[in-house]
């Protein structure tokens, strides 16, 4: 005979009475696990989508009005390039890439094009002071799926708005420019009196980028006599960090500039996240209230029903600690069973229904196992503590009173 034998036998003796409490905690944990599971994969999916869109935060001169996200750098107003250093040194988390741009009108033969100066990533790496400042760092859960180094430059420029390396007289040619001028890789392009080598032809994007020629920022600044300025700084912001207030933080860092984001996408993400978080909290509240109340109610009834048994145990020498442990062990087993079963059911529900509800594939999440068990056990123990204490303080004389 051990304490757990005593508890185990009692549970099976009165399993029907325990069923309601078990069901309450099981359903609560099931709901929380299912929501958390679906939310997790939904956030991942949205983060991936946002990531695929490329830059999602723009830093512009204050006076610029944003008509078209892709032409924001073509309005003539400028901001100091020094903002890039400020951002790079800020230590802000969630800036996946920085891409300053300066655009000027240019002509290639008879064709009018936009010459856009960009800063390749190698420029950032070259500046010791910028290293380790958090730029290009990927916070956990950022959702980035493509690494820049090693990828083809034209692809990364289109997808990530950044390019790894770019020589001072090298150029990337937009799809429309390439087709109208019949350019191919290695051709020389004359722009504003300077010769540029076309190192890559960019794929079609359906945006004004197709009419651009990209060259090194500092070369463009020089030939356009603009000084160390840019029209815009594009940032690939991690969507999770955006929802945690990255835009506001950049605003505080650069009060003289305008910070805009792809609000529709981010807002949807933020709203979805917030709704799911609230829903999780609501369910947590429900499980704490309903599950806790149900367990407490059951435990109080159980103590009352067993007062004679408890009195007998006390007459045989059981101290209050043994009695308390007896009830808390039962609560622990109830919580464990509710947590494990809730995790299994919740995961099955999420994996089965998640794709239909959220439109994303959902897989089991292992870290939810300890979380589900922890919540269930905490609620069960918490709800049973006072009934257990009452049991320990029962008048042992009940053992001698006839029923």
């Amino acid at each position, binding site marked *: *005979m*051990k*304490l757990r*034998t*005593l508890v185990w*036998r*009692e549970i*099976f*003796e*009165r399993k029907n009475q325990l069923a309601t409490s078990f069901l309450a905690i099981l359903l609560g944990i099931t709901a929380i696990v299912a929501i958390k599971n679906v939310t997790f994969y939904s956030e991942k999916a949205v983060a991936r989508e946002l990531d695929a869109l490329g830059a999602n935060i723009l830093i512009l001169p204050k006076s610029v009005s944003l008509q078209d996200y892709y032409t924001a750098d073509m309005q003539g107003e400028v901001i100091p390039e020094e903002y890039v250093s400020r951002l790079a040194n800020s230590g802000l988390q969630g800036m996946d890439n920085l891409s300053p741009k300066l655009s000027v009108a240019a002509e290639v033969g008879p064709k009018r094009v936009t010459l856009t100066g960009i800063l390749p990533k190698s420029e950032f790496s070259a500046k010791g002071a910028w290293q380790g400042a958090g730029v290009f760092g990927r916070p956990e859960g950022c959702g980035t799926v493509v690494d820049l180094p090693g990828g083809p430059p034209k692809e990364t420029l289109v997808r990530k708005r950044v390019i790894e390396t770019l020589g001072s007289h090298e150029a990337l040619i937009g799809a429309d420019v390439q087709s109208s001028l019949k350019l191919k890789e290695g051709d020389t392009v004359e722009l504003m009196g300077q010769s540029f080598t076309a190192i890559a032809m960019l794929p079609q994007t359906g945006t004004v980028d197709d009419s651009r020629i990209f060259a090194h920022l500092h070369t463009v600044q020089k030939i356009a006599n603009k000084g160390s300025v840019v029209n815009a700084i594009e940032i690939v912001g991690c969507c999770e960090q955006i929802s945690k207030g990255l835009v506001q933080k950049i605003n505080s860092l650069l009060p003289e500039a305008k910070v805009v984001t792809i609000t529709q996408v981010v807002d949807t993400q933020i709203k979805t996240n917030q709704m799911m978080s609230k829903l999780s909290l609501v369910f947590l509240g429900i499980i704490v209230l309903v599950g806790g109340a149900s367990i407490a109610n059951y435990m109080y009834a159980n103590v009352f029903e067993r007062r*004679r*048994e408890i*009195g*007998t*145990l*006390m*007459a*045989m*020498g*059981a*101290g*209050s*600690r*043994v009695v308390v442990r007896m009830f808390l062990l039962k609560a622990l087993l109830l919580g464990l069973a509710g947590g494990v079963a809730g995790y299994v059911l919740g995961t099955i529900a999420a994996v089965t229904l998640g794709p239909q509800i959220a439109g994303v594939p959902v897989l089991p999440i292992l870290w939810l196992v300890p979380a589900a068990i922890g919540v269930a056990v905490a609620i069960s123990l918490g709800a049973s503590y006072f009934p257990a204490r009452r049991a320990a303080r029962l008048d*042992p*004389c009940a*053992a*001698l009173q*006839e*029923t």
Partner: protein
Amino acid sequence: MLKLQSVSKEYTMRGQTVRALDDVTLDIERGDFVSVIGPSGSGKSTLLLVLGGMLSPAGGRVFVAGESIYELSAERRASVRKKTIGFVFQTFNLVPYLSAIENVQIPMFLAGASEADQAKRAAALLERMGLADRVHHKPSELSVGQQQRVALARMLANDPAVILADEPTGNLDPETARAALDFLEEMNQEGRTIVMVTHDLAAARRANRTLRLAEGRICDHSPKDVHVGLGAPVETSCGKA
């Protein structure tokens, strides 16, 4: 072995104070067999609970094996019960969801005995009670007499020096009652001190001496061969024994 010094206990019920024990002084020697009789509400069960360390008196001191038990902490008092006292209940108070052998193991489990020792001793005790073929039966699967024997085996589990029996024959047919009393006598002959509360005068006569309680006071104490009537008037000697 058991000693009460000016012990008082009062209950308040529906605004009225009931004096369950009134300045009771009592000395029970080691190896004594004492029966306690008296009308309902006279304080018999209260006396037993107070002696068993389960009900603290309002006044006075209670000694078990020389130790003033109500001056000990609740846990220490539980420990004294565990090691020294065995209770016999009128309705046996077996744990319904445990088998006979598991019921007998409970006091040993509380005393910290190993599972192997518990099982060995419990089986031996049940065999002594003639229940070797019923060890795995639950109380509901046993007759009343068998249940009583399981309860007696359980009481003996930790080899108590003191046995406190509350109406041990109250729920039994005459034959089973006689067997239970025989068993108590046998326990007494082994040197255990026994205090037995009973309504049954025949059962009371099996004890070495009989105490009669009335209105919380000991009104008479008689050796075994003296008849003590339940309805006898309260005598002037009430309160001392």
